[in-house]
């Protein structure tokens, strides 16, 4: 019989704006996945359970848990706040339905009401806060109507039954919290688990009781002792001696406790430092921000260099023509001088041409007329028929006719040079080549100004990225080196770490080599004396009951201690076996071969957790994903090693953030086997530009028969806070 959450609904709870019906998630036995990008309402979803169980929420601003009554303004949807009229009331609530067994279904509603006093909506004093009673309703599964429950104790019982408080830490966690659930450095964490899973605390009580009865039985026996005979004296002496050795033993046990504390403290410090060194989750979070920024910076720097390269081209590129800047007057001067040059040149050429062949310039007849036959006639007849006058041989007129007859048939004569250096084409080419430049001269200054602005813009962007990177790297450094106390230097940490290890070694030597052997020796001595007392008392004239009482109490006390140790060790072994099975399943989709998890007892009786390869060599510094999976394996082992079936759902917010698809897939497979129901909020499978908003792994999970429901949350891109509303699509 397990508890299964059937639905969760929100009313104006953070971004879940609107009524319960608008924000209802129906869930089923098996794996339920809610996919959302950052800001898509994952943590808010999880916060509903924090409210339900603890009257708290996790404030995302400072990552601390706060009581509802101190943060009600933050919890209420901004859109709802904005839409409420002054003096108007608005409710904020969560509603969870769950079944336990096959008979009853429960509905739990937690809510508060705010009355708006003025428009300053983010100010808590602008609202009057009223916490409403927790509503708990029950129905028989075959009925539809809920009946309210009024008894406060009964209400509490129903809420507790959903996930019993002692098991919430294994069933209900957010992101890196899993690191704290199983903190292998804390003596208590595995012990606590063993306590929850076994009757070890009962055994502890029994050990105390049986030890007490042993002392009482011995005292009673001693009181029965009759004086004045040798055996009685021997018995008294034996009891005295035992008392003396017992005192020594107590003294040594005290010393052992002190050394165990020394060891435990040093171990705690070492583990704390280790944890600080390897604050995997925070580092990962920052690394995930640094990586894209580094790429962005690289791209920007490349863009800037490319931009600088292009500046050279802009001097000679007709589109920019920076080279022409300041040449405005020169163009005018060139034009006027060129005009003059052309003018002069043509004049000069015309004069030469006229001189050379004036007929080309000064005749009234059409070209090539009169024709050569007519001219021959005119020569033969010594008369010009054109101007009708005589042209006797030897006269100027006759010669002219002969010249005309002999004129060249082709009119195009090779140009005769008329200047020493003809610069016509030189100046012409200058004009042609300079054309694209001088036409843009008026725009050059503006173009340079725009380019300069662009340069400043890219530089500013680069500086901004660099500043962001620096701040992230500083944060990372602080986590890496100083943990919470960033003023502690790297060297100091190292010194502390080495000191802690030294103290641990010292304590281990003292405990294992000196104290424990001494204590064992003293216990053997006491046991021998107890046997002596036993045999001496038998021969005494003491009622049998006292002797039996003493004998039995000694035996029972010893057997009880042994039983306690046995139960504890068996459970640790069982946990180890289960943890290894889960670890194998969790890492099945990873290329790297997972190692073997081993639980070892330390001198302070805590459980040391060792991760070895198949050759029994301890493996250090495996990836953060593996570290997290190790811890998950132990959490799952604690659940599955329980002889009775685990009855509670798993509620996990981003438990595997950014450890890669192999782990994500393994996590869903393994958690489905251990928990009757898991509700997991993830962003890893979210894909913004996909039609369904999920990646390939998401599609695979969608087809997986263990996955019973899958929702994708959406928030409008770039919306103002006041308009931010989470909506959802049910994919399965």
């Amino acid at each position: 019989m397990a508890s299964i959450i059937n639905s969760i609904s929100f009313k104006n709870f953070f971004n879940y704006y609107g009524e319960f019906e608008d924000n209802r998630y129906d869930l089923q036995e098996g794996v339920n996945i809610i996919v959302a990008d950052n800001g898509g309402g994952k943590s808010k979803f999880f916060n509903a359970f924090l409210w339900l169980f603890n009257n708290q929420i996790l404030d995302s601003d400072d990552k601390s848990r706060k009581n509802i009554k101190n943060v009600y303004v933050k919890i209420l949807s901004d859109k709802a706040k904005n839409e409420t009229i002054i003096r108007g009331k608005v409710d904020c609530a969560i509603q969870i339905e769950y079944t336990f067994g096959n008979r009853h279904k429960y509905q739990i509603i937690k809510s508060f009401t705010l009355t708006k006093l003025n428009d300053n909506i983010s100010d808590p004093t602008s609202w009057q806060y009223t916490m409403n009673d927790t509503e708990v309703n029950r129905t028989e599964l075959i009925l539809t109507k809920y009946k309210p429950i009024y008894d406060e104790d009964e209400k509490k019982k129903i809420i507790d039954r959903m996930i019993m408080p002692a098991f919430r830490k294994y069933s209900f966690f957010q992101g890196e919290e899993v690191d704290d659930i199983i903190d292998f450095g804390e003596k208590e964490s595995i012990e606590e688990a063993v306590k929850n899973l076994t009757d070890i605390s009962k055994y502890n009580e029994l050990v105390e009781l049986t030890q007490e009865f042993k002392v009482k039985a011995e005292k009673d026996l001693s009181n029965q002792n009759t004086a004045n005979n040798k055996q009685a004296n021997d018995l008294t002496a034996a009891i005295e001696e035992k008392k003396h050795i017992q005192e020594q033993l107590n003294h040594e046990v005290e010393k052992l406790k002190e050394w165990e504390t020394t060891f435990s403290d040093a171990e705690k410090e070492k583990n704390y430092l280790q944890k600080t060194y390897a604050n995997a989750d925070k580092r990962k979070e920052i690394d995930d921000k640094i990586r894209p920024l580094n790429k962005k910076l690289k791209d920007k720097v490349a863009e800037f260099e490319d931009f600088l390269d292009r500046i050279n081209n802009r001097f000679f590129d007709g589109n920019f023509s920076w080279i022409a800047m300041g040449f405005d007057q020169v163009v005018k001067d060139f034009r006027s001088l060129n005009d003059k040059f052309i003018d002069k040149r043509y004049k000069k050429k015309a004069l030469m041409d006229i001189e050379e062949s004036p007929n080309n310039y000064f005749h009234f007849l059409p070209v090539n007329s009169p024709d050569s036959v007519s001219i021959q006639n005119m020569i033969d007849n010594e008369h010009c028929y054109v101007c009708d006058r005589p042209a006797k041989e030897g006269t100027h007129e006759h010669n002219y006719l002969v010249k005309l007859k002999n004129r060249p048939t082709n009119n195009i004569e090779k140009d005769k040079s008329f200047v020493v250096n003809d610069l016509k084409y030189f100046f012409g080419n200058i004009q042609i080549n300079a054309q694209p430049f001088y036409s843009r001269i008026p725009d050059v200054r503006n173009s340079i100004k725009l380019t300069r602005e662009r340069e400043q813009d890219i530089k500013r962007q680069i500086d901004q990225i660099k500043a962001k990177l620096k701040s992230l790297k500083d944060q990372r450094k602080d986590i890496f080196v100083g943990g919470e106390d960033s003023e502690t230097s790297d060297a100091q940490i190292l010194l502390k770490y080495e000191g802690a290890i030294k103290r641990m070694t010292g304590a281990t030597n003292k405990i294992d080599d000196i104290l424990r052997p001494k204590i064992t020796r003293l216990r053997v001595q006491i046991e021998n004396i107890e046997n002596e007392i036993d045999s001496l008392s038998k021969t005494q004239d003491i009622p049998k009951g006292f002797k039996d009482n003493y004998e039995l109490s000694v035996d029972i006390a010893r057997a009880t201690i042994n039983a306690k140790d046995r139960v504890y060790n068996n459970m640790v072994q069982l946990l180890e076996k289960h943890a290894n099975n889960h670890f194998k399943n969790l890492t099945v989709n990873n290329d790297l071969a997972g190692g073997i998890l081993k639980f070892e007892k330390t001198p302070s009786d805590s459980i040391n957790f060792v991760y070895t390869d198949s050759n029994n060599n301890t493996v250090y510094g495996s990836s953060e994903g593996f570290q997290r999976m190790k811890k998950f394996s132990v959490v799952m082992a604690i659940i599955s090693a329980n002889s009775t079936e685990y009855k509670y759902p798993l509620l996990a917010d981003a438990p595997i953030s950014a450890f890669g698809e192999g782990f994500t897939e393994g996590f869903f497979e393994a958690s489905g086997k251990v928990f009757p129901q898991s509700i997991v909020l993830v962003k890893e499978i979210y894909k913004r530009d996909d039609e369904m908003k999920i990646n390939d792994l998401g599609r695979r999970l969608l087809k997986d028969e263990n996955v019973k429901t899958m929702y994708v949350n959406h928030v409008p891109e770039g919306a103002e806070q006041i308009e931010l509303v989470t909506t959802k699509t049910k994919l399965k």
Partner: protein
Amino acid sequence: MSRREEILKEILSDKELMEKYKISPKDLKELNILRPGSKKIVDVLYTIINENDNKRTSRQIYSTIKNIHKI
């Protein structure tokens, strides 16, 4: 088997105890030893486990044990 019986069985399964008080594995398995008056050690141990569960004080439990021994 109740939790109390489980704890009783666990403590009694101590090798030395089984030998000394002649408790056979079969006795342990079938919990024959729980028959009243069968073995004093079982009576005493069961009393301690039971009465501790019933939130009786150690002084009260010790008196009951003394009654079993008739002292």
